[in-house]
């Protein structure tokens, strides 16, 4: 991944920074220029709650090349306590430990590395609580 592309997403991936619509209060993650709920264009910076719950999940057994050394791994759609939904890995647990509705918290982790000369990619993952 070219480093400018990686660098641009750091506020979201490292710090869960989000945008809150000044008009209707809808949270956008990642931030957007136009609110998907009301169309307003004014936002204030905020953060996702680092706690949430699993809405649905799967265990990936056939992965893209960058993730091949991690299979099997769990991926879920998690709803943070302030209502924003994200796709994230759920780690430090077995596939059979996952259930819809289980509570999780976000942690900062390495996601994958791009071979010998590429960058190491970090971001959020979820762990069961």
């Amino acid at each position, binding site marked *: 991944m070219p480093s400018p592309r990686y660098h641009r997403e750091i506020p979201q991936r490292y710090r869960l920074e989000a945008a809150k619509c000044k008009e209707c209060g809808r949270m956008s993650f990642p931030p957007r220029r136009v609110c998907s709920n009301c169309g307003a264009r004014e936002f204030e910076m905020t953060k996702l709650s680092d706690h949430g719950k699993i809405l*649905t*999940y*799967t*265990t990936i057994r*056939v992965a893209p090349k960058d993730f091949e050394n991690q299979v099997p791994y769990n991926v879920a759609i998690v709803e943070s306590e302030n209502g924003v*939904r994200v796709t994230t890995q759920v780690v430090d647990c077995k596939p059979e430990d996952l259930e819809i509705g289980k509570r999780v918290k976000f942690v900062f982790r390495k996601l994958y590395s791009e071979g010998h000369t590429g960058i190491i990619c970090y971001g959020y993952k979820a762990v069961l609580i």
Partner: protein
Amino acid sequence: MREVAVVGCGMTKFGELWSQSLRDIFVEAALKAIDDAHVDHIDSMYVGSMTPGLFIGQEHIGALMADYLGTASIPAVRVESACCSGGMAMRLGYFEIASGHSEIILVGGVEKMTDGADVTYALATAADQEYEVYHGITFPGLYAMIAKAHMYKYGTTRKQLAMVSVKNHHNGAFNPNAQFPGEVTVEQVINATMVADPLTVLDSSPVSDGAACVILASMDAASKLQIPLIKVLGSGAATDTFALHAREDITALKAVQLSAKAAYEMAKVMPTDINFAEVHDCFSIAEICIIEELGFTDKGKGGSFTEQGRTALEGPIPVNPSGGLKSKGHPVGATGVAQIVETVEQLRGAAGKRQVKNARIGLTQNMGGSGASSVVHIFALQK
């Protein structure tokens, strides 16, 4: 707007076509369609293709195909909307004739997926690269999460998912162009290699090469051809949130519902008027959600509707008589046009052992990504 007819169709066999190139298979399908329609020229061309750049390192394929079809000089453009590139090419072609700008055009779809590219990666570019794919999700994974949510919310069973594959392989066994025409059992589907829980490799459409083409004409031009005319009754397209996780209801495919509504309204028909449908069963769960959104059954009932045989070839609303993406194959850009080829053959009564009885009105539904785009067309035999 003017009325539009499909006057010719053709497709290659779907499968691992290692001896043929991208341009070879497109031209083969295009020539079949041109010969079928008995037209002596085409005014322009739309080519649906998802990502020839990633699959074989070739872009700009509108002009490439026009050249190799021997029609260089006509306008030709590639249309992209992930796995519904073919269906969207059809929609643009439809409007070109309907608007009065052209009389006879070619709409095609093509994909060459088995030339050695990282297919899982290439397909995943139809999802959000920064907020889905970055976390290691794959397309089977996205549909697996829809399946888990559907099973949790509506009680859909593992067996009901498998029944989609069993039915489609049964239909595909009668299709000479199908990549995997063999029958499968519920046990085989459930016990096959797991790809993303709960979906196995037999819940998933295959990696395929293939091309499909249709010829569209204005009613004026079509009526001079003295062939059975298949009229386009309606066209609808819609979009939804790009990322699956952003949807209020993970089990709802809103773009499918909206595109179908637009097509039904334009065609002035109801779901109960449809005699058969070709739908985007890229994974077994997708067909279950789609038949709900098309209004063939109630929300949440897609699994039991399938298990009861309602969508079987002999049922009240046969779905995927061609074998669907599952058995026929899924060269992504070609799929939407191949659905139309099947619909034309069914409406002409020329579908052989997989012929739907009393096929008068047929529907095609083609979907991009995890449902961020969808396109629906409705066709009828012109008496």
